[in-house]
């Protein structure tokens, strides 16, 4: 009797352990599968013209304008999100201690972190793209600026959260020491706290950059895309993820090859960024 119970428990345990290992294997298998396809299919389409020609020439073209556009949009997004995000994170960590608003904002920031990016794109459409008709002659204009603002909205919560977490890791004795010397709080914050949390904050900015580099949905109705090289942020602006989206939908296999090549470049860029963010600064940042 007791032997059979023992056997049953052992079998149950072995089955559970095997299934757990199987689950891990499945997870790793899918990772390997996706990376493998992106690498092999992408390498096949990797040609020098990818970096020199623009999308206007279709099969004979490249992705140069999309890469430049992505770069501009990402830089815009980060430039807008960083000061606001660092400031908001600083307020959460340093100023919100006695207010009820602090935990609420922190909570809402966590929600913004996983909010559907397409809805944020529509939001920017209504507050930036639609009103643009009052500035021009009645024409609604999609623009790089709008795309940058949409990306900034997605980068913002990442930066807020890492700044908040990193500042809270700074020992309180540092604050006390500075305050006891008569340093005003803004100087303490700017010159001592933010500086000592700098590497963590930079990690957050890099993670945010990795996050927005792959975003497609919010750009569809803001930057809109363009087949030409443009450096003007007031104009429609192409981006790598969006060209991948268009080229994947295209029925022509030659165009699909370009999409894979773009996917390869994008994936390498994003993975490199997140690896640098994770290992170069050797700090613990969670980014769920």
């Amino acid at each position, binding site marked *: 009797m007791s032997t059979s119970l023992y056997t049953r428990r052992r079998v149950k345990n072995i089955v559970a352990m095997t299934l757990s290992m199987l689950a891990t294997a499945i997870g790793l298998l899918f*990772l390997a599968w996706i990376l493998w396809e992106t690498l092999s299919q992408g390498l096949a389409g990797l040609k020098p013209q990818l970096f020199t020609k623009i999308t206007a020439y279709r099969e004979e073209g490249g992705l140069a304008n999309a890469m430049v556009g992505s770069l501009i949009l990402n830089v815009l997004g980060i430039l807008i999100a960083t000061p606001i995000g660092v400031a908001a994170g600083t307020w959460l960590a340093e100023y919100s201690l006695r207010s009820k608003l602090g935990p609420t*904002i922190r909570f809402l920031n966590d929600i913004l972190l996983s909010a559907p990016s397409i809805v944020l794109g529509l939001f920017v459409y209504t507050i930036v793209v639609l009103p643009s008709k009052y500035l021009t002659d009645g024409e609604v204009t999609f623009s790089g600026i709008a795309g940058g603002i949409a990306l900034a909205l997605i980068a913002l919560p990442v930066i807020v959260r890492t700044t908040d977490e990193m500042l809270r890791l700074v020992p309180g004795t540092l604050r006390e020491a500075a305050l006891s010397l008569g340093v005003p709080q803004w100087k303490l914050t700017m010159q001592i706290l933010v500086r000592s949390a700098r590497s963590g904050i930079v990690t957050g900015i890099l993670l945010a950059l990795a996050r927005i580099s792959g975003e497609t949905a919010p750009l569809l109705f803001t930057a809109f895309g363009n087949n030409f090289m443009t450096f003007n942020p007031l104009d429609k602006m192409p981006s790598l993820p969006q060209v991948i989206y268009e080229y*994947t939908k295209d029925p022509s296999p030659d165009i699909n090859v370009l999409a894979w090549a773009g996917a390869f470049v994008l994936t390498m860029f994003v993975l490199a960024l997140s690896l640098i963010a994770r290992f170069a600064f050797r700090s613990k940042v969670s980014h769920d």
Partner: protein
Amino acid sequence: MHATVSNDVPSAERTAEAARNAKDTRDDRIFGWVLKACALLVLLALVGAAGSTLWLGWDAFHTFGFGFLTSATWDPSNDQYGALVPIMGTVGTAFIALLFAVPVSFGIALFLTEIAPQWLRGPVSSAIELLAGIPSIIYGMWGLFIFAPFVAEHVKPWLMNNFSADPPDGQVSWLVQHVPWIARFFSSEYPFFGAGVFTAGLVLAVMIIPFISSVMREVFQTVPTRLKESAYALGSSTWEVVWDIVVPYTRTAVIGGIFLGLGRALGETMAVAFVLGNTFKFSWSFLETGSSIASTIANQFGEAQGLQRSSLMAIAFLLFVVTFIVLLIARLMLRRLKTKEGK
């Protein structure tokens, strides 16, 4: 500081110091205001996203009334819109995604916290987290070019042979003959076409596995070692420790992690847009093509005008509200564990 200032300090110096103090106080206050304004932008972004979609979607809500939610018509040529098909597609894909992602994530978390040797844990968890870093457009491409054909060739025919009323091999299975309703969920007009709710759900599952498993792993690690050691000392097997000690202890946080994954799955656009098929015919079947809220917006918003645009804004509002509630529940449940830990 003031206490040490004696009376014989020249008054000019004292006024200078008072002025400096006043300036510092003022600067501090302005600095605090600026920071607070930036923090309030987070609040503004959420309220703004909800408000703007409701504002521009009002026309659709007003025109179609409550029927907007229950009508399965989506007909731009006659300007008639109902959100049922996109809603069903969103719910269906998210359901499939959770169905596969939850057990796999649980297995991964179990493996990483209890089974794997110490040296293997770091590399494996980094690799799983790498999945979270891959842009969703890449999942979409992979889904369209690689995974959907794979499903069409190997998975869907098998499912249809076993569960549908009109299987490709012509033999209706015992299960279908004896279990009512089941065939309804597995029918498809095109047995060898890969796109559909099922495929999209699977792609979403792969996307959300890293999120759910990393939350589960983190919360499993918060279980006090004493508790587990006591159970082991009483002769429990690893599985018994996990199922009877670890899971009950972390239950709310585990559910929170699942809701976090659900929130992601509901709002995901690009991974789904390619593999869902973008059709607007109502169907109960998981193997049929469909559309989700996010994919409908992505596909139609560019060319939409008037009532169609308003309808798209209206479903965006619905999506936002639902994900907001789901994420709210997720965060509240995840927070409960932190209070338990005393953090």
